[in-house]
């Protein structure tokens, strides 16, 4: 899909209500079990952010402002009156930025282990600094069961190259202010669509207490913890995750 001159990779599958997925630190894996479970009940549209997956990234396109404008245009370009917008982790931040602007295409909002706001005091980080923390520790904090972490030795060259490009792109967008917009929390109460916040009980990248506080700033949002899952409940508990999401559609 070419949007505003940007060649974007978009994974599409399934039939039913339209659901747009905005991915987190890595693009959506088309083989992921949760995707196939969800595709039995919904029509999935999953773009890769510019600089992630196979999506191009224009020169100097490196801010949340760029991404928010791009996804506003992306939603407008979809042939649906309304969609459910689902944001995972970093993509949850983008989804929240769109929702506070009352984008007319958003019918419902689901946020999964999202980042994007500052909750605690200035000396207490809410979000693990994944760039400045040892990768082994990041793995421990990401997964309920570290055995679910990707095995780099088993991955193809292409997948590893993509992963490293994703990492570089994530740093462009989210290095500073780190993984959040200092003003977003002030605006979250403007979100005026039904909102569901889902969280992995074992997430230590962003803890469930952060998710609860995030949900508390959105009028009427509900908050659900998924057991035996870390930062990516959609990967570690795909069936439970899809049940929670489907019930919301």
């Amino acid at each position, binding site marked *: 899909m070419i949007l505003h001159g940007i060649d974007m990779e978009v994974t599409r599958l399934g039939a039913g209500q339209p659901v747009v997925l905005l991915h987190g630190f890595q693009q959506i894996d088309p083989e992921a079990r949760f995707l196939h479970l969800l595709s039995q009940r919904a029509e999935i549209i999953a773009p890769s952010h510019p600089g992630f997956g196979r999506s191009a990234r224009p020169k*100097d396109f*490196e801010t949340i402002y760029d991404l928010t404008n791009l996804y506003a245009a992306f939603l407008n370009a979809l042939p649906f009156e309304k969609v459910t917008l689902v944001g995972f982790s970093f993509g949850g931040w983008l989804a929240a930025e769109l929702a506070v602007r009352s984008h007319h295409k958003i019918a419902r909002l689901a946020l999964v282990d999202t980042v994007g706001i500052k909750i605690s005091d200035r000396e207490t980080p809410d979000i693990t600094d994944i*760039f*400045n*923390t*040892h*990768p082994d520790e*990041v793995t421990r904090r990401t997964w309920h069961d570290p055995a679910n972490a990707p095995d*780099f*030795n088993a*991955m193809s*060259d292409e997948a*590893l*190259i*993509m*992963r*490293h*490009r994703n*990492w*570089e792109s*994530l*740093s*462009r967008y989210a*290095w*500073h202010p780190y993984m959040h917009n200092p003003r977003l929390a002030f605006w979250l109460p403007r979100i005026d669509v039904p909102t569901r916040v889902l969280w992995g009980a074992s997430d230590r990248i962003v803890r469930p207490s952060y998710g609860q506080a995030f949900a508390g700033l959105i009028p009427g949002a509900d908050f659900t913890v998924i057991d035996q899952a870390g930062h990516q409940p959609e990967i570690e508990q795909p069936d439970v995750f899809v049940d929670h999401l489907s019930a919301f559609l």
Partner: protein
Amino acid sequence: MDAWWQCEIPYPFVDKAITDAADSVRASLPNQLCDPRIAATLFDEVLDEFLLCDDLGMNVIAIEHHAGINSLIGANPMVTSLLARQTRNVRVLSLGTLVSLRPDPVRVAEEYATADILAKGRFDIGFVKSGGTEMASSNINPVNNEERYWEAIDLIKKALTTHDGPFSWEGKHFSHRHVNIWPRPYQDPHPPMWAATGDPSSSAEVGRRGMRHVLVLRGPEGTKRAYDAHRQARAAAGLPKVTTDNFAYAALVYVGDTEDEGIEVGSKLLWFLNTSLKSAPQFNKFLPGAAPPVAAPGLYRTQPKPDAGLALVDAEKGVAPASRNAEKLISITAPEAMAQGILFAGNPDSVYRQIMQFYDKVGGFGHLALVGRSGYMTHAESTKSIRLFTKEVLPRLKEIGPVEVG
């Protein structure tokens, strides 16, 4: 050829058990491990060594590194200003305040103009790209570091050379709408500018800009490749040929009375490589932007994959991260370091010979930067080498004039 002396003022006095256990000796070691009284003694000794260089006719360099045992000079402008005033004879090079880490290049231009005034024109400005752990300790987005570096240099140069200001600057990384520094620099149009970099693309940029190009501990192949990129970029841009005066090389250097003494004491300089380069994977191979995506298979896999063709990228092609260079250096021994042109050590004749062998291998250079003290080397040992080098080696180097290189 001219010579320049430097000491990074490292802080080696941390238990080996602690540095062995730490995943990084930079950025993350708590500063409770740094005794301020020892730090004060180190600064005192090294500043005296700089002043001895001034007495004996060797130029001096103040470097900058942050938050680690490798160097206590995190605040380069402070050491630069001391040297600018306390020396009376030689040139002072700031190599340099790390401009891509500084939020306001205009403030850097003010500091450098002031240093040039203090030194009455005996001042050179050096630009170093930084990287690795310093991205964390300075809170700087690593993927844009090089862009910030060049934009900062552009703005600093304009601030130093604009005399009918104020002017406005609204760039990608820096915005300053009313630039008009006082004092202006002593030298006209500005102090000589150096850049320390080794990869081919930024070496080419250094060449096009006509800056003095310094390579640090790169060995003959990497140094020659960078100098060549510098010269070729000038030729491709239709710019005039330069002389060896545009090229500089920094090595570990120690001169003793005898060959054995020179090598034995000089080996203490390897502490810098063996101990102070250790940094955690998030600060080197996984630092965003440090290695291109194509290098990923070699970075992520812990076991090589037999059919991993794309993993065969290497430092020689300029695509491996600086960490790959660091890995090679951490385990280096004195004979290896001498064979690779990283350490010049021995008696005066031998050190002169080693320098000239390196000179011939890389096609000539006009400036030698001596990393003259590091690790556990004592003040007395350092002082001895400074005296021997300036008496026995430097006069011979000074006879080598600039040569045009194309």
